[in-house]
């Protein structure tokens, strides 16, 4: 959700440059709500670990998906890359018993390859990214299912990771906090650097603002788009790796919930659907908000369907306030002159 500057003679200024402010407010409201209903359990480590674990998985994917949305593109295929990656690890290192690093490297390679393909499709054919990545999603799903049945003879494959791998990707501190939370922090730091510190961030925002002008300004728009897709493929595959190592098994059907959840985290985090604007802190806050609702509902004793309604309402509120922010930023001019 975006912060909307009210009145003020100095105008929109710095405040509106911080769309995070609105996301933070949303987070506080939602947390307070579930803290009141959920009580001690939710406020204590059971609550924190449960929503942080959820946030970490979807958050690792939401970050690069957010970058893509800032650049004006969508990536639906993450929902198929995740199980494809899990199964790659399970088949190579579980079914065939090859070294685990080989399985992990191949899984990440699958993610990067699908991302590369997405990037090529979007930049070379002009097919809207929504459609192009739905296409690759079905393609990857079909291949995953086909190969898994062909090789393993079932839709689920098991693996017993060694202790080192387990502690790197699949352990839980105190039996509660998954290591994925630390990976998520790492991803957030790197992507924060990309978007807000390095000159690349400017290119990404320009790409989502106006592709033609960005290209005329000398930005390698096609290469940048392809790289962003490779990053989101990599992130989805990474979550696939942590999941297969955490659970010791991989299922063909896993992952589709990540598609909409990741997009919701990004939008709740204040990224404009039309691209051109967004922040990493916003995406992280949006992910936390989403995860708090998603898990808080179990602590609150409310009907689980209520959680979906809250998330739906949050999403609408976020889009409305993002649009208001956008409109205000543009309308501001008329008032001053």
């Amino acid at each position, binding site marked *: 959700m975006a912060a909307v500057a009210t009145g003020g003679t100095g105008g929109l200024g710095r405040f509106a440059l911080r769309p995070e402010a609105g996301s933070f407010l949303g987070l506080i409201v939602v947390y307070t709500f579930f803290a009141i209903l959920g009580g001690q359990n939710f406020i204590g480590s059971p609550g924190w670990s449960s929503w942080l674990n959820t946030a970490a998985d979807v958050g690792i994917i939401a970050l690069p998906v957010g970058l893509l949305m800032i650049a004006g593109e969508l990536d639906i295929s993450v929902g198929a890359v995740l199980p494809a990656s899990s199964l790659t690890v399970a088949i190579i290192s579980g079914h065939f018993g090859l070294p685990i690093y080989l399985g992990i490297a191949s899984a990440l390679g699958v993610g990067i390859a699908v991302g590369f393909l997405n990037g090529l499709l979007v930049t070379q054919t002009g097919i809207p990214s929504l459609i192009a990545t739905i296409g690759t999603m079905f393609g990857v799903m079909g291949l995953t299912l086909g190969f898994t049945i062909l090789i393993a003879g079932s839709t689920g494959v098991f693996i017993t990771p060694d202790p080192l791998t387990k502690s790197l990707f699949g352990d839980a501190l105190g039996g509660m906090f998954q290591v994925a939370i630390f990976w998520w922090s790492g991803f957030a730091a790197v992507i924060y650097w990309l978007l807000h*510190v*390095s000159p690349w961030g*400017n*290119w990404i925002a320009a790409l989502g603002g106006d592709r033609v002008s960005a*290209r005329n300004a000398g930005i390698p728009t096609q290469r940048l788009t392809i790289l962003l897709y490779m990053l989101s493929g990599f992130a989805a595959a990474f979550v696939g790796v942590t999941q297969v190592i955490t659970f010791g098994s991989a299922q063909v059907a896993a992952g589709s919930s990540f598609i909409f959840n990741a997009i919701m985290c990004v939008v709740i985090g204040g990224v404009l659907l039309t691209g051109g604007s967004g922040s990493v802190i916003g995406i992280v806050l949006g992910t936390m908000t989403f995860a708090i609702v998603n898990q808080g509902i179990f602590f609150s004793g409310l009907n689980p369907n209520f959680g979906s309604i809250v998330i739906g309402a949050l999403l609408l509120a976020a889009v409305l306030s993002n649009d208001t922010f956008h409109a205000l930023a543009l309308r501001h001019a008329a008032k001053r*002159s």
Partner: protein
Amino acid sequence: MSEKIPVLELQRVDKSFGPIEVLNEVSLKVNAGEVLCLLGDNGAGKSTLIKTLAGVHKPTRGKILMDGQEVAFAGPRDAAGRGIATVHQFGGTFPLMSIGRSFFVGVEPTKGWGPFKRFDRKKANEIAVKAVQDFGITRIDDGERLVGGLSGGERQSLAIARAVHFGARVLILDEPTAALGVKQASHVLRIVNETKRRGLAVIFITHQVMHAMAVGDHFAVLIRGAIAADFRKGEKTREEITDLMAGGETMAQLEANVEGNT
């Protein structure tokens, strides 16, 4: 002035889109330190002409010369690289970016080295703000403000300041004052004058004769893709120019037509 070599020159340029002929034997000269006003009715081919100059379209026939040498633009980037900058009606194309960031899109100043280069936001903001203030727009003092939050005139000024900062030699303005009120338009006109004073060649497209007369040194009227009149400052009165812009019909004829229709 006429013996100077023009910065940019068109020689008998035709442009057709398939069977549709839009430009017909257009010849024009643009000199450094001068404003060329391009006038013409809707659909006369003004936008097509400047897109040809900016490397978006390739001429079907005819020559484009820069400093007396024939050139062929590979694309808008090539033209921009040779110093031809186009500012569109709404100025900044990245409304949701800050002034400092949008000023430096594609040429970001950095500090640090290698893969750890950081975007130098402070420097970008300072340079951008200084560049606009040098044009007399002192109200812009914060490089963090969003471009979309600026007024139309301020946005035009920012875009012009940017082009000048990055060494443009020819500045093309496509109806920069069309959407502006009187006060804002006069700001932009002042900046056009300042740009000219700095030795750039300016091509100024407008429908408003008053705006054209306020800054123009040289005028060309385009009617159905051909140059119908080409004259210098002071050679024609406001009424004559208005008549020319109305497509060759006199104002009196136009009034008669309007009345005849009621």
